[in-house]
């Protein structure tokens, strides 16, 4: 395969190289750099781009990427894996979702792609990443998560033509049942939808739970599912496991809490819920029950706030709905 260069990571034929991609500068002038790993197969083939920690504290993705990278052998690969396991590096180091150096515009990197070289810090970082992604990636898998260890769903860019078609095949090969076929008007500014609109089939995997709230078997299971995607794309050899049908939700609701208080959830990820069903109980600061949270609609729980504390406006529940009937 043709050699490539991403930051200081330069390939030289088949094998594995590491390096750093400069994203921005710290106030002291030293670089904010994201780690890059490139594994190049002996045979030619497509390039899959993987990244984790677009939201800095979603470490499960870092570990899934590491687990995958440790398990692949360049001598058995046709194509290439490019991985940025700790993308939003200053947020990664700080243990928070967004860069602590971002002072404007919210700083949610997954709303700022493709970025802007003259924009805010997060927009500049997004630009530095996306220009490489666009140049090198044939496929994108982006790792995210929500709060709890049982988070287990996926999204693909359901845009025109082969992007939707290939995205759906990747989602099926990954095989989480709860999957959203993301329509064109949703999640603008995400790496997934930006890549999709540039013709790059793209999948988001939501796995594990943020911070330390994930388990080793979440990581190992997701890495095996990722290998299945690589088999589908013929980067790895072997039969593609059939994990069965996927839900293909056509929409999701992101429900914000309308009140604060102590909170204990009453549902878990993957649960089917009905409209008006109680999904959690609020307590006041003295421990007295002070109200319930109800689901605004029927659907499947994709993410639920674990408590123990809630502030107005926090994400209470994330519901997938209207699965495609086929």
């Amino acid at each position, binding site marked *: 395969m043709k050699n490539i260069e991403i930051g200081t990571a330069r390939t030289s034929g088949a094998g594995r190289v590491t390096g750093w991609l400069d994203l921005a500068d710290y106030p002291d002038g030293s670089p904010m750099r994201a780690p890059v790993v490139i594994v190049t197969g002996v045979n030619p083939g497509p390039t899959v781009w993987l990244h984790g920690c677009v939201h800095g504290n979603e470490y499960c993705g870092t*570990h899934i990427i590491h687990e995958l990278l440790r398990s692949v052998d360049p001598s058995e690969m046709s194509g290439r894996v490019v991985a940025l396991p700790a993308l939003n590096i200053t947020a990664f*180091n700080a243990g928070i979702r967004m860069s602590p150096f971002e002072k404007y515009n919210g700083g949610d990197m997954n709303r700022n792609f493709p970025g802007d070289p003259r924009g805010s810090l997060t927009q500049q970082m997004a630009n530095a990443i996306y220009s490489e992604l666009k140049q090198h990636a044939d496929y994108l898998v982006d790792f995210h998560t929500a709060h709890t260890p049982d988070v287990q769903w996926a999204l693909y860019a359901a845009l025109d033509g082969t992007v939707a078609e290939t995205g759906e095949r990747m989602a099926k090969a990954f095989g989480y049942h709860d999957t959203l076929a993301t329509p064109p008007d949703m999640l603008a500014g995400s790496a997934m939808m930006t890549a999709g609109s540039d013709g790059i089939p793209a999948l988001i995997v939501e796995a594990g739970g943020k911070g*330390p709230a994930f388990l080793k078997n979440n990581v190992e299971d997701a890495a095996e599912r990722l290998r299945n995607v690589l088999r589908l794309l013929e980067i790895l050899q072997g039969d593609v496991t059939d994990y069965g049908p996927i839900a293909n939700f056509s929409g999701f609701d992101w429900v914000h809490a309308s009140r604060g208080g102590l909170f204990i959830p009453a549902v878990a990820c993957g649960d089917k819920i009905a409209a008006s069903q109680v999904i959690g109980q609020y307590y006041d600061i003295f*421990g007295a029950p002070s109200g319930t949270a109800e689901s605004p609609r029927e659907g499947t729980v994709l993410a639920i706030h674990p408590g*123990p*504390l809630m502030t107005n406006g926090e994400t209470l529940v994330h519901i997938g709905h209207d699965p495609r009937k086929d």
Partner: protein
Amino acid sequence: MKKIEIGTAVADKPGLTTGHLNIGATPDGNPVNTPVMILRGAEDGPVLWMHACVHGDEYSGTFTIHSLIRSINPADLKGTLVAMPALNLTAFQANQRMSPFEGFNGGDLNRCFPGRENGTVTEQIAYAVFGALKEHADYFVDFHTALTQDTKWTLYADYGGEVSEKGARMTRAFGYSSTLPAKDNLLQGSAMHSAGKAGIPVLIVETGGVGAAFTHEAVDAAAERMRNVMRELLMLDGDVEDYGTLNYFSSFDWICSPHGGLFEKTVSCGETISKGQVIGRFSDVFGAPVAEAHAPSSGIVLAIHPGPVMARGDLLIHIGLHPERR
């Protein structure tokens, strides 16, 4: 029945009274008022003082206090429970260990007791709380935790005389098998230290796990152990359950991490470890193993860093030394 007055909570008859104690003021001039609960029994008796969230994100204690207080019928209670379930309120709200308004001196409230009337933000909190505690408390239980769900140990002030004797009885009635009889050169500035020096028998319970990392089963189990402490102190009727022999430590080792990196622990709370044993593994941001962490001494694991990321100097492990079973 003599009136008990703590802030706006004024209790002069059996039942639950709630109110707030002023512990500071925010820059906009609004008061910082920490919640106070007073549960008086039908019969007079001792005052057991409990507080939680001296470290703001240790919510397991808040729920343990709520579970306990909500389970007791005042008709069955001899004496009074006083509780501050969310003591370091601004840290509690911010989901962090220390008050976000503290600009100096680290702000670890459990190193600032008995406090100072004209001291720093945190010293003033300690002063406001300790004045009331010293005035009212006959016994004191302080709820804390470490990082992981399996955190489960106790400490009591072993300063001689009645403080030691009653503290040891409370510890046995609570019954976690790992316990440290703390000498008065340990944890100076803790509420335990100040209370013990003032002649109040005192127990610290470490239970649950920070933030959302605890279960409500663990909370209810800890509340039942508290009822056992209350039976031991003759505040509730009934036989005192014997939880069996405990491991008493001579002291503890508190080890800070010699490396920064990704970290995966290989031991859990309550495990017996020997000096030199591997307790976890560090890998770099590319996923390559870089070092092992070794136990600096033999003993029982009281707390261990859950990973997945570690800065140099983070608390790696907390070990109870020279366990003696009796």
